[in-house]
Structures are given as structure tokens and as C-alpha cells.
């Protein structure tokens, strides 16, 4: 993922904005991830809160979209 964290978020292109999408429903996860990628965002998906926390330990994300 080519995210330039040195630049302020508002100055980056969509492809430089990393999104972690969290939802336990696979169909929702896959469909939103596909749609957001078509909008040129860099999207990673995980199925649950603990996976999300592990992902945040491994990598910096600009935005987390999560089921509540």
C-alpha cells in the first residue's frame, strides 16, 4: 500500500488514503470493499474487532470503518 503519511490527510489522493473496513458479514465486507476500491481508496478488510486491533498494531490506517 502506497500511503504517504507525511502528507496531511486532506492533501492526499484517494489511493493514498488507507481504510480498514471491519464487518462480520462477509457479503457487506466484500461489496463495500469492492465499491470503495472502485472509488480508488486503498481498502483492507477484517471480520472482527480483535482482527482490527491486530491490523492496527501491524500498520497505520487513516480511517477505520467499523460495524457497531
Amino acid at each position: 500500500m502506497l500511503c504517504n503519511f507525511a502528507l496531511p490527510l486532506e492533501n492526499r489522493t484517494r489511493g493514498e488514503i488507507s481504510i480498514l473496513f471491519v464487518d462480520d458479514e462477509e457479503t457487506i465486507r466484500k461489496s463495500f470493499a469492492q465499491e470503495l476500491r472502485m472509488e480508488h481508496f486503498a481498502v483492507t478488510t477484517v471480520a472482527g474487532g480483535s482482527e482490527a486491533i491486530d491490523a492496527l498494531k501491524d500498520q497505520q490506517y487513516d480511517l477505520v470503518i467499523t460495524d457497531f
Partner: protein
Amino acid sequence: MMPDVDGFEELKATKKMAPLTRVIILSGCGDMQSEIDALVFGADAFICKPCEVEEMVFRIQRCVEMKTL
């Protein structure tokens, strides 16, 4: 509701580990108290499901344009 760590715990952990990471909450309920609680715990936006991708992109764009205080 997430099956393992619930949404509030995940939100709190995210804001603790990565305070600059913006968080958008997706919720199936129209419960205003949940929305207030999410905002109190640091959520940047709240979207009720079902939502269209256009709304999600709009919320993402708004979050991206928010200046860090």
C-alpha cells in the same frame, strides 16, 4: 454487534493506539444513545445501515477534509 470485541471496545482501542486515525461507525440501529456514546468515545462519523456507497464515500470525504486539532 461484532462477535468478539464489541464496537465500543474496538473504538476505544483504535483511539488509544492510533489517535489520529479517523473512525466511522456503521450501525444497524437507529438508537440515538449509541450515536452519542460513539461520538463521546471519539468516533468521527456515524452511519446507519443500510447505507449506499455514495453516502459512505461522502462521509469518508468529510472525515478526510476535517483538520486535525
